[in-house]
């Protein structure tokens, strides 16, 4: 079968980029004749993908496959074509989170969500990262939705060490290191992490928080830095974007991975933390409960006192901590690249076959 895969941007170091390349490889392994198209392609990947505007020059495919993770002109292009369309849906952040901070980003997200609605009505089938993402498509009337975890590179096996990160003295429960990995964005609620850290420091004055990730909103980042400076100066590290080696080092150094994110379509860092043997304390929002399963401590809301109590419990109660580590590693194995690739191959075979035979 001739399958053309589309994505807005193709970058080897972002989650959707890695996933798209894996899907491309799986399609080839399944024997499909496949090509990859994007509006923006990282220089390293120019030999593996074509610009979207070149698509008109190649022979038409049997099925279109769209990696849907943002509002994009790709969606308008695909909506105008007649071939069967299959979506691989990675979720869009609700615009309300960005409206007060970055109105222009909010407007783009509103537009993107309208595209999701139109694409779901046009598509013959879809694969979603999580049941939470799948439900959004079902709500738009798309019935054929399979759930397969996002494909991502294992982080725990990343070798090397980082002396700067790992040299500090450890094993002191009064000086725990809390870690969160994710874009600095209003929906990730890093401000609630700073509130939690501030409450936690009442009983553990040495507690520190490391935020790994680039800013999606400069205004939100600036507000976070101001808040941290006002309520817990020198206790929050804004690590920014880091290499895989440094990221692996932060996971090794962390005592607890804490997420107060109010909206997650899957949550790759949650799995990375579990894989690295770091207990997870997280707000039960979006797809977080299904990603973490019963391996993490899930919190019902954003109460910093409850979150601080949960972190303390994980630090102080060896039984809880050890069992969370064991269960976390087991859960990470269930979501491993190898198993997810198998599930993706099966789901792709089914959804593409149904798409081709759709009237």
């Amino acid at each position, binding site marked *: 079968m001739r399958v053309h895969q589309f994505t807005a941007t193709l970058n080897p170091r972002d989650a959707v980029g890695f996933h798209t390349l894996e899907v491309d490889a799986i399609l080839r392994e399944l024997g499909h004749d496949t090509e990859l198209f994007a509006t923006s392609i990282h220089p390293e990947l120019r030999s593996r993908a074509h610009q979207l505007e070149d698509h008109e020059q190649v022979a038409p495919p049997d099925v279109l496959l769209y990696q849907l993770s943002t509002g994009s002109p790709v969606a308008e292009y695909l909506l105008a074509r007649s071939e069967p369309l299959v979506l691989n849906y990675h979720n869009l952040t609700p615009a309300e989170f960005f409206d007060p901070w970055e109105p222009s980003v909010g407007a783009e997200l509103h537009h993107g969500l309208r595209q999701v609605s139109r694409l779901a009505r046009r598509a013959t089938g879809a694969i979603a990262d999580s049941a939470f993402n799948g439900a959004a498509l079902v709500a738009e009337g798309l019935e054929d939705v399979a759930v397969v975890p996002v494909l991502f590179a294992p982080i725990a096996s990343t070798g090397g060490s980082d002396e700067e990160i790992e040299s500090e003295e450890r094993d002191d429960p009064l000086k725990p290191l809390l870690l969160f990995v994710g874009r600095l964005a*209003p929906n990730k609620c890093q401000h609630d992490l700073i509130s939690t850290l*501030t*409450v936690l420091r009442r009983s553990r004055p040495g507690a520190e928080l490391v935020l790994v990730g680039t800013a999606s909103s400069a205004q939100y980042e600036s*507000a976070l830095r101001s*808040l941290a400076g006002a309520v817990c100066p020198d206790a929050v590290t804004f690590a920014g974007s880091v290499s895989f080696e440094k990221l692996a080092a932060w996971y090794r150094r962390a005592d607890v991975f804490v997420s107060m994110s109010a909206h997650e379509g899957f949550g790759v860092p949650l799995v990375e933390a579990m894989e690295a043997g770091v207990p997870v304390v997280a707000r039960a929002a979006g797809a977080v409960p299904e990603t973490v399963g019963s391996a993490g401590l899930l919190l019902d809301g954003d109460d910093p*006192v409850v979150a601080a109590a949960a972190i303390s419990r994980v630090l102080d*109660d060896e039984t809880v901590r050890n069992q969370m580590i*064991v269960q976390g590693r087991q859960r990470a194995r269930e979501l491993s690249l190898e198993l997810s690739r198998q599930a993706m191959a099966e789901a792709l075979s089914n959804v593409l076959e149904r798409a081709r035979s759709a009237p």
Partner: protein
Amino acid sequence: MAEQSPEVSAPAEHFELYIRKVRAEIEAEAKLRRMQDPEIEQQEAVIDRAWAAVAPPGATGPVESMLLGRVEQIAMVDVMVPVGHRPGVREVKRLIRKISYWYFAYIASQVNTFHNALGRYLRSLHARVEALEVAAGTASLDGLIDAVDEPSETVAAALANCVTTPVRAVVLSCGSGRTVEALQNVCSSVYGIEPDAGRLLPGVSRGLDLRVDDPLTHLDVLVPGTIDAVVLQGFIEDMKPDAIARLVEMLKERLAIGGALLVAACDPDRRDVVDRDIRLGYGIAPQTWAHLIDRLGGNATLLPVDDERISAVVVARFS
């Protein structure tokens, strides 16, 4: 600490139950910390103020007074352009400022006057809404009022007797889970919802499926048709009749076809003096529940119970 690699075998089959118990204990611990350490509340207020000072309006939650303060703070348009420190840039900016000052000051004055009027209007609106809330008696009595007693074992058994076929049930405001426990033998699945983590802890320790949540919030997100029986108790005694009518309407949509609504409500006449005075106007007698349900399209029956507080349980179905 993350390097520990405990290869002990976790009791996987029980782990979910175990972690649920840990969650309930954490909620109770947090509640206890709040009660024992009043400085926590002050600290939270400091954090909220610090955040409100740097976050844009609309991103700081429903703290009206802070939001209004922030609106006033950013509503003023300052026409004095910062001139910077580098000599060349400073001179250019100074020149631009001199040339444009009169015009921008004229515009800014009008915008500021408008914002000022808007701010004052919002303040007066806020004050009027507050006065209205006080007049309507919706001001919270939290801290002055005791929680409603959990239904006795007799009432819990009477509720369980109303269930004749295995159903999926939820008990709203379940307390320590007495009713959930009674229903366990007759339901295919049953869980309880309780906003007070401290109250449900004993039940969680007994292995019951009890979850911390607000009953109305839980109902709001419940997928219609997934529950066959809903038991109402406790929190309904803090609701006014009009809110109770709205609750019944909501339950009609949430219950599965042929589902049952079971109500264990205290007869207001049976309350003690303090309870009667403070809860005046809140909660309705079982007979009134039956009347309301009938008028809203249901079919309610009263089953008398030998109990000090609750004279009868109400069993209702909607066609």
